[in-house]
């Protein structure tokens, strides 16, 4: 850039000398301090807004101390699927922190900008914090909701977003599915055991019936998790909100104090919102940016960041670091992961949520 401008200005020696001088000074200072100005874009899903608002300055400060480089992080939030779609279409995100692995798989499959084995790039399947799905009910739990079975009782309205578009909603769907399997089978280990094939088949049929029934109790199918929370909290619709645990906490603590209660079901899903570096984008920004992007995600596992995640109601993978008071808020419940029950996110997506999949078959409003 600067050299080409020099060429253009070559007819005016005074200017070019000035410019050369300026160039010299900048290169001098940069070799002296080795400070780089780096800008990263983090494309994330809806409920992480508050977390990254706090994490970004924490990281910038830490990274400045470590390397002297100035990193500013821009944020883009939206439904997880929408964000992945944007990255596929060319949103220059350097890191993605999305709601579920399938969305990052989609980026890897369609653009190759994310490494195929992105899940092994960081510890804990590249999920620095986890969450689960719980119920948010009106204060005092007027409908007496205790567990998944209560959701399909007559007169109960359930708010959950559309699993075709919302990552959170897919976790909701699968959590309900897991509950029925567990109820029917008693032991999820039977799933892979051929000798229980018939029993598993019956359990899956029961799950289909239950989940289909569940969606008949849904009066509004928002396109994203935030929309659903708005519908429940702000618009006063529905008796139960199936929500990310962190969204449920946020609603009780910050949106409407003393308006809502959290009900913890007996069984739920271990939600692992993953992170990945979009190598295909960040490599255009140079080595320093690449390093910073990796550090940005790696530092999510640091004790400070883990404590921050816990403070924002995400379950830290390293509980030691978190404030005990924050940890105490997380209830104990039986959690099962997607890989354990459904094999992988790719399989789950294909079976349940793709066009013509289980959701399309059972959804009868």
């Amino acid at each position: 850039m600067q050299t080409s401008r020099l060429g253009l200005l070559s007819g005016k020696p005074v200017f070019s000398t000035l410019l050369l001088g300026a160039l010299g000074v900048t290169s001098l200072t940069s070799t002296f301090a080795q400070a780089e100005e780096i800008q990263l874009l983090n494309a994330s899903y809806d409920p992480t807004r508050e977390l990254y608002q706090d994490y970004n300055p924490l990281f910038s400060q830490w990274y400045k101390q470590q390397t002297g480089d100035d990193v500013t992080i821009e944020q883009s939030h939206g439904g997880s699927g929408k964000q992945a779609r944007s990255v596929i279409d060319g949103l220059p995100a350097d890191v993605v922190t999305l709601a579920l692995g399938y969305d990052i798989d989609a980026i890897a499959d369609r653009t190759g900008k994310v490494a195929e084995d992105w899940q092994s790039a960081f510890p804990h399947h590249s999920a620095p914090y986890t969450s689960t799905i719980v119920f948010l009910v009106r204060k005092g739990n007027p409908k007496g909701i205790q567990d998944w079975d209560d959701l399909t009782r007559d007169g109960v309205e359930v708010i959950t977003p559309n699993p075709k578009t919302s990552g959170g909603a897919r976790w909701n769907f699968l959590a309900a599915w897991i509950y029925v399997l567990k109820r029917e089978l008693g032991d999820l280990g039977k799933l892979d055991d051929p000798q229980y094939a018939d029993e598993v088949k019956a359990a899956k049929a029961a799950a289909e019936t239950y989940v289909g029934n569940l969606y008949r109790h849904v009066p509004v199918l928002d396109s994203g998790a935030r929309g659903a929370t708005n519908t429940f909290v702000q618009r006063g619709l529905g008796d139960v909100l199936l929500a990310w645990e962190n969204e449920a906490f946020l609603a009780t603590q910050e949106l409407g104090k003393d308006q809502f209660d959290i009900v913890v079901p007996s069984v739920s899903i271990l939600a692992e919102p993953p992170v990945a570096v979009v190598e295909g984008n960040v490599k255009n920004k140079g080595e320093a940016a690449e390093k910073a992007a990796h550090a940005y995600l790696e530092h999510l596992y640091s004790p400070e960041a883990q404590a921050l995640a816990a403070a924002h109601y995400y379950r830290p993978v390293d509980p030691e670091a978190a404030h005990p008071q924050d940890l105490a808020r997380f209830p104990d419940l039986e959690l099962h992961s997607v890989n354990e029950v459904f094999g992988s996110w790719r399989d789950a997506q294909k079976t349940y949520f793709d066009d013509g999949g289980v959701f399309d078959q059972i959804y009868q409003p």
Partner: protein
Amino acid sequence: MSTTQNILRPAPRTGTAPTESIPWVRYALSALALLIIALFLILPLVAVLFEAFREGVGAYVDAITDPYTGHAILLTLITALTCVPLNTLFGIAAAWCIARFQFPGRSLLTTLIDLPFSVSPVIAGLVFILIFGSQGWFGGWFAAHGFPIIFALPGIVLATMFVTLPFVARELIPLMQEQGSEQEEASIMLGASAWRMFWTITLPRIKWGLLYGVILCNARAMGEFGAVSVVSGHIRGATNTLPLHVEILYNEYQFSAAFAVATLLAGLAIVTLIIKSIVEWRQQRQWENASS
């Protein structure tokens, strides 16, 4: 016609016709019309203001002076300042060739200019993704040359231009058709240059219509949501226009802030309406002068 005129005493044009003579019909209809206006038009405006100040003036000021809001205002202004002049030039050119000349394909061209009016803004966003997205026709090339279109300012400008394309042209075409071309032809015959003819004959005669179109174009350019939403990428402080910022704040549970920013847009709408009625009034006078 002539017979009835002979039978009846000539009624003044502003007088009360017999159909309206029963007072209760008049009052009932007036009340109904005002109720419709109040319910559908005024109440939403009041609600915006009410919700914006629900948490007090301090919260309102905070929301308005937030740096992200400032950036969204800036981006919205840049977008409008790019789109509106370009679409004004386009509108004048389109109106000139369509209203002043006969050529094959003229009505097809008119329909194509109209198309953005009735196409869903979402489709407007979608087509630009198909062309300029990284999976699209030219997206890879532009991105490789360091000039990204989608999820950057050019994409927002393109989508906005598409949506606002018909505004100026649609305002000018009927106006210029109605005015006819005799004066312009006379000036050319008297030896005026094309440039001189445009500045002294054409422009003065269309200026109010032009301004009217420009105002509507500007209002739409600043307020467009659907098309811009698809191509923006929603990067805070980078590709967030004011309407998108409203949505983001709304999704962050900052309802008062969302409505506070919405008051800016509602204020813009009001200002637009005021300028518009002034222009309309001037335009009407001009038409009356022209016809008398």
